[in-house]
């Protein structure tokens, strides 16, 4: 017994001695996983009070040695997880830990900046707009720019196509498809009558309508950029056919069996002659209006993330109309325009590596417009007038435009959804032709380089800062445009956004044909807004100030001495929740703007802007009877109009008369109903009909006035007919395009 005790005593002492001699190295190793059992790589392991730490590897393993002797605290951190802490007492030579991190459910997601823009994308959540929401507003006639007029910021301009945003002209808004410019979005202009869009809006899955402060990746638009993204791949193969009062069309879309490529084409033909016999129009048409349009596309996926897309669109149009001549009661004024256009867009994107992405875009478009103004007598024979000023009533022009663009953008992804983008693009454009008896020739090469960063200063504060350089060959000028925007997210679904930017734009081509020495026009934007999105409702209020400089003035000398300002505030509220199957939004726009440009003798309120505009878009579905009703309403106060007398003494312009038109007040209605023909077919086709009336109440809209040369005769510019009716049927084969079909026909 005694021997055992002594042995025991000796081994204990030996143990204590050896422990003392092991130089105090404490070894910690283990794994870090999340509560779904997945390893967490690159988790940060730190020992408090000591400058020691390590990171877990891709399997979540870590290994750490410390010479600490006293109690230490081990902390583990990783983005998206709650902090893990464990107290350790160095004693045993190794410790093995299996650490589980609890996730920090980020119920908020990344902050996205939205100053000066409305995004309508297929990834939209809750009450944020989708592309289809924007396009199915009653009265939009398949033209995106008309659909977007139901959003705040755009003016209700009934006699011209385009988007007139916050005191800017339609030419100050540019449209981009997959990064490249859509040079002529609409058919050739006809005085006083809105012309339709060439590209079908159903091509798009994403629409970013920027009313100011847009990204450094885009330029050459003083007021607004409409940034469109085309659909990547159709969900299935399908074919459709539509027949309306004034147009017919059809198309086919085929998706490969492996879902990695698709091709398709669409054709549509519109001739209003028959419709015009049913519904009398103010102008007397001797040709058309007729429009023929065809487009084709193919899309190919490459590798894991690559995508090649090609789109081509070809169209031709003809409109010939007769109106009473404003200067002479016995004469009639004839306008005849023919247009041919082709637009081609090739885009490619791919991941170059885990952190790098490239986007390449190329576009080529050709546009030919043939215009003829004539004055006819009672026997419909052309009259050649030689006396001033009537000799200017006859004119002829034939202008061909070529446009090509190439663009490349690199994106470097950083941690936590941050990124840096940079790239360059080149625009080539060439106009040539004849205008009256003089030759037109204009060639311009514009090069731009840009860079932009998306940085998160904190979980709730995002900043986008960029710079754009533009160089124009025809202007011989290089400009630098800074852009910056910021978003600060508040607790409880609200967010403040701020944007600032400088935007340059070349003067319009018709000004450049005969004048040299012009420079870029410039606009500076300051925007502040507050948005709140929750419970399928979306509230937004925005205020802005725009300063225009170097606008083109035509006078004794044509130069860039014009300027202007625009300021205002806008409200938008959308509710998809309060009433079942009802989706509505209401907007209000206040605009105060003046500019001194072109022929204006001094700073004036331009004729395309009005102080107050209010719109409402309402959509109600009746699922039990498969029907849909869409209503849109727009109200705007009157627009200014002027009688300018040109060529006054000293080569100036004088205002002989001016006024404000009566307010604009239009209700549009569209109804669609789905039927179920051929329901015994295997792939039941979707079919139905839709009817619509624009300006349902038949109110008389006056957009402005035209004056005769001596100012005695003043004719209002109205809609060509009080109301516009549309009625038609649609068939779709292939279950997937259902929503498409509804939207195409609403």
């Amino acid at each position, binding site marked *: 017994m005694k021997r055992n005790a002594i042995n025991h005593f000796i081994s204990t002492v030996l143990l204590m001695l050896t422990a003392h001699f092991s130089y105090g190295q404490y070894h910690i190793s283990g794994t870090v996983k999340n509560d779904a059992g*997945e390893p967490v790589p690159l988790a940060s392991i730190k020992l408090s009070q000591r400058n020691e730490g390590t990171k877990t590897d891709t399997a979540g393993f870590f290994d750490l040695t410390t010479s600490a002797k006293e109690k230490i605290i081990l902390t583990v951190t990783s983005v998206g997880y709650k902090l893990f802490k464990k107290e350790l007492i160095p004693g045993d030579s190794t410790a093995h830990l299996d650490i589980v991190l*609890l996730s920090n459910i980020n*119920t908020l997601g990344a902050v996205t900046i939205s100053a000066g823009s409305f995004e309508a994308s297929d*990834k939209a959540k809750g*009450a944020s707009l989708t592309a289809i929401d924007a396009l199915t507003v009653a009265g939009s006639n398949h033209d995106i720019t008309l659909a977007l007029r139901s959003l705040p910021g755009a003016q209700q301009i009934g006699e011209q196509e385009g988007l007139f945003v916050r005191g800017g002209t339609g030419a100050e808004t540019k449209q981009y498809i997959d990064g490249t410019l859509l040079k002529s979005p609409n058919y050739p202009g006809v005085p006083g009558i809105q012309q339709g869009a060439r590209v079908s809006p159903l091509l798009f899955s994403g629409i970013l309508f920027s009313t100011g402060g847009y990204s450094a990746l885009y330029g050459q638009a003083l007021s607004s950029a409409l940034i469109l993204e085309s659909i990547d791949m159709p969900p299935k193969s399908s074919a459709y056919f539509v027949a309306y009062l004034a147009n017919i069309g059809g198309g086919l879309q085929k998706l490969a069996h492996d879902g990695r490529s698709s091709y398709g084409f669409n054709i549509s033909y519109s001739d209003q002659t028959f419709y015009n016999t049913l519904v009398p129009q103010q102008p007397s048409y001797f040709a058309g209006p007729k429009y023929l349009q065809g487009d084709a596309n193919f899309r190919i996926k490459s590798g894991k993330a690559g995508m090649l897309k090609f789109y081509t669109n070809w169209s031709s149009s003809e409109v010939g109309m007769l109106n009473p001549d404003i200067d002479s009661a016995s004469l009639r004024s004839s306008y005849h325009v023919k247009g041919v256009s082709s637009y081609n867009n090739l885009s490619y994107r791919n991941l170059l590596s885990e952190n790098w992405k490239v986007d390449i875009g190329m576009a080529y478009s050709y546009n030919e417009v043939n215009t003829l103004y004539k004055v006819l007598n009672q026997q419909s024979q052309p009259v050649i007038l030689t006396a001033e000023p009537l000799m200017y009533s006859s004119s002829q022009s034939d202008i061909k435009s070529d446009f090509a663009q190439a663009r490349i953008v690199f994106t470097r992804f950083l941690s936590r959804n941050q990124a840096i983008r940079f790239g360059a693009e080149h625009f080539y454009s060439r106009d040539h032709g004849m205008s009256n008896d003089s030759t037109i020739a204009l060639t311009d090469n514009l090069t731009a380089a840009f860079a932009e960063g998306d940085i998160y200063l904190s979980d709730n504060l995002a900043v986008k800062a960029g710079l754009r350089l533009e160089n124009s060959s025809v202007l011989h000028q290089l400009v630098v445009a800074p852009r910056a925007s910021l978003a600060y997210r508040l607790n409880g679904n609200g967010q403040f956004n701020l944007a600032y930017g400088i935007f340059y734009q070349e003067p319009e081509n018709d000004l450049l044909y005969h004048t040299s020495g012009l420079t870029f026009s410039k606009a500076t934007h300051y925007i502040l807004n507050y948005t709140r999105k929750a419970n*399928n409702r979306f509230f937004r209020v925005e205020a802005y100030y725009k300063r225009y400089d170097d606008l083109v003035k035509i006078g004794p000398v044509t130069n860039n001495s014009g300027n202007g300002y625009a300021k205002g505030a806008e409200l938008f509220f959308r509710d998809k929740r309060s009433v079942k199957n009802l989706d509505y939004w209401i907007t209000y726009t206040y605009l105060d703007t003046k500019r001194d440009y072109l022929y204006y003798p001094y700073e004036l309120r331009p004729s395309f802007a009005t102080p107050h505009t209010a719109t409402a878009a309402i959509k109600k579905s009746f699922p039990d009877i498969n029907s849909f009703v869409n209503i849109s309403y727009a109200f705007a106060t009157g627009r200014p109009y002027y009688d300018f007398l040109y060529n006054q003494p000293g080569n100036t312009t004088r205002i002989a008369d001016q006024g404000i038109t009566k307010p604009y007040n239009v209700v549009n209605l569209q109804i669609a109903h789905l039927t179920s023909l051929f329901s015994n077919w295997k792939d039941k086709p979707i079919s139905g009909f839709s009817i619509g009336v624009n300006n349902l109440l038949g109110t008389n809209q006056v957009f402005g006035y035209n004056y005769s040369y001596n100012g005695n005769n003043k004719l209002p510019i109205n809609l060509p007919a009080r109301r516009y009716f549309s009625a038609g049927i649609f068939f779709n084969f292939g279950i*997937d395009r259902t929503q498409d079909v509804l939207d195409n026909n609403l």
Partner: protein
Amino acid sequence: MKKLIISTLMAALSVCTVVAQQSNNSSALASSVKKLDQAKTVKDYQALEKEFSGIAVAQKTNWLPYYYAAFCNASIGFLYQDNGESVEPFSNRGESLAQKAKSLLDTAKQKKELSELYTVFSMINQSRVFINPMTYGPKYGPIAQQYLNKAKQLNPDNPRVAFMEAWFKYNTPKMWGGDKDLAKQLATKSLKLLQNEPSNGEMPHWGQTEDTELLNKYKN
């Protein structure tokens, strides 16, 4: 001899600790499952999800707590059906928890369990449709339907499958195959199946509240 006594005591002690731990675990699961029967609001489900996640990590190889944690997320998704902005994080989390539960099941043998899990997968995909029905519906609606069909194949007498079928038939427009009369029949069938279901420990037994709520809609 002394050594023998000491080592035996030590062994007995360690067994006791293990047994104690196990019964702690299953009593924790049982109590959380009981609380689940009373859960109504998003807050209730969020708190329960945390409890189930903790139990899942402690038990490591039991599919049930992962199933329940996924079910909590799916329920939150359904409570947020008119709040499309808030749904996505819960759908995503529910999906990853359900995937983990699936990895712990023997998919060939545990058919009843897999049927319950596929029902939850169906709910999670339907919750994604609530984000924005017009754009997310065409993609996730069919996936939700497919999961439910699989669940039905594995266990045609699963009352929870019958409930989800009733829910789909009630909430789908007629044009796309909805049928309110059929929905009523299915909900009634689900209640009957629930009554005949033997109580089976902590296995899923929800459905009564949901069926009753759906059938009440017909009273108006």
